[in-house]
């Protein structure tokens, strides 16, 4: 009897897990199938859409890489991502250190205030910012994105790093000060090497968040050669020729590395999100 109940529990667990995996990954499974399916097969309504009724093909991938600006979108995304990572590190690391080490009540509140600016939605700011970008002469330039994306990466990463720095015992640093290091010297030589995983988290998130961003890129950039994947694939690949095969491949290829990176660091990200609501 107990055994039967155990089996029942187990199979309902698998049922739930399989159902949700299918629900979540369904559009991506579909992208995989469509990327390798012959056009004739894709557009024949009688065919089972989930099977390869004709042999698979690489024609869509070939077209995507050699017949569209897709590679350019990838390069733009990486360039913007790297620049945003650098700016974020340069600004957020000292800020987080300052908040973590000298925070009284005042610093604590400042930290929370900085985190809350992460909640100011881009959809509220894109209209005035598009004017600011025009004023600075940065429209139709990747620099517009490089300048604006840190507005959401800096608040979140400062918050995340603050938690990391707080967890490093003060004693280690004081020892370094006694040994003759300056305060900044102690930060660079002692604290940063101990926070490698925190810094890595910041790198991954700044990069993936700028890769995910949609509205600013849509508002600031309209020349097709300057688009990132997030806007290039949905606007250009659809506008140009509207073929499902290359479009699905174009959506799939950047998604996979982004998802892998993000998943690896997700637990730290969540720890930042929950702001100590878990103790």
């Amino acid at each position: 009897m107990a055994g039967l109940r155990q089996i029942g529990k187990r199979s309902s667990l698998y049922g739930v897990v399989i159902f949700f995996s299918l629900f979540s990954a369904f559009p991506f499974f579909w992208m995989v199938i469509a990327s390798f399916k012959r056009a004739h097969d894709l557009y024949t309504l009688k065919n089972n859409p989930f099977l390869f009724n004709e042999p698979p093909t690489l024609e869509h991938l070939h077209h995507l890489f050699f017949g569209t600006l897709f590679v350019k979108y990838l390069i733009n995304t990486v360039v913007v991502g790297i620049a945003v990572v650098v700016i974020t590190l340069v600004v957020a690391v000292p800020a987080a250190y300052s908040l973590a080490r000298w925070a009284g009540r005042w610093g604590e509140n400042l930290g929370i205030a900085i985190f809350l600016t992460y909640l100011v939605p881009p959809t509220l700011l894109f209209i005035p910012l598009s004017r600011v970008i025009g004023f600075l002469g940065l429209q139709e330039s990747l620099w517009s994105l490089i300048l604006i994306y840190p507005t959401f990466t800096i608040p979140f990463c400062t918050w995340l790093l603050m938690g990391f720095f707080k967890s490093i015992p003060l004693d280690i640093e004081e020892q370094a000060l006694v040994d003759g290091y300056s305060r900044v010297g102690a930060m660079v030589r002692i604290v940063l090497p101990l926070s490698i995983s925190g810094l890595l988290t910041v790198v991954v998130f700044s990069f993936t968040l700028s890769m995910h961003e949609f509205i600013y890129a849509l508002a600031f950039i309209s020349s097709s050669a300057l688009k990132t994947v997030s806007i290039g694939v949905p606007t250009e690949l659809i506008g140009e020729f509207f073929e499902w095969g290359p479009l699905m491949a174009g959506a799939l290829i950047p998604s996979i590395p982004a998802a892998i990176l993000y998943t690896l660091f997700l637990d730290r990200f969540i720890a930042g999100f929950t702001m100590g609501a878990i103790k």
Partner: protein
Amino acid sequence: MSAFNGEFGGPLSHIWDRERVLAPLLIAPAILYIVVLVGAPFFLAVYYSLSDATTGSQSLHFVGLSNFQAVLKDPVFRKSLINTFIFTLVSQALVLVLAKVLALALLKDFRGKWLVKFLILLPWTAPIALGTIGWMWMLDSIFSPIDWILRYMGLLGAPGAILGANSNLYWLGVPSLAMLSVILVHTWRMLPLATVILLAGLTSIPQEILDAAEVDGAGFWRRLFQIMIPMLLPIMTVAVLFGIVFTFTDITVVYLLTQGGPVHSTQVLASWAFFKGIEAGDLAQGAAVALFLFPAMAGVAALMLRLARRTEVT
């Protein structure tokens, strides 16, 4: 320690050791960035909403509240406002229930859990614009695989079938189905985040408490409602608040799936602000529409602050 740094340092040689100098200096760039590129644009948005700014002209005139009057009279705006609330509330209610079920399942150990986690997280970890492209095909007017399954099961496309004799449902072409589709995609997108937040909360409940309750004869439901949910309340609130902010202010899903159509039936504040402010060039009215996003966001921020304070005290 501060006494040590302050008293024995020379005026310049130890300037790096002076907290009073160093602490503000280190944090200044971050504050500057936020003030200049988040704070100032926010006030600029308020200013535009009270002016007659357009993308074409450089001159501005103060026009008082006339933009807000014009916006409030606009039926499309009212539709957008209502839709924004409907999409957010319905999808977040669904997310909360589904995330709870999924988090409880993921608490158990089973084979292939890492793969399951990767797949379940995809809607959140992959760029949303790209995930939505997958849905564009799922919900396509002719090639929708969902319609294919329904036809295959005989629910659609045959005379007398439950869902009608047409060969397709036209997910994005019928107002009610288009709204349903947008809600579905929002739910799909926010489910992973809520699930992992709840999972983090669940794993933090000490197993001894649950074991003790079980020994005392509390069944699954009793443990769920009298121990887990009360203990999870703060973290569930966090999950819901983030869900609300991200869904309420999102533009990607509506912009890519329906462009607000058919006939504005899925228009939301963010998309309407974009169409007005950027595509039609009416910065003033676009800014006025976007500003309606602010009260919701401020409310959420206030709740978060209260929550942060409370957890600080306990």
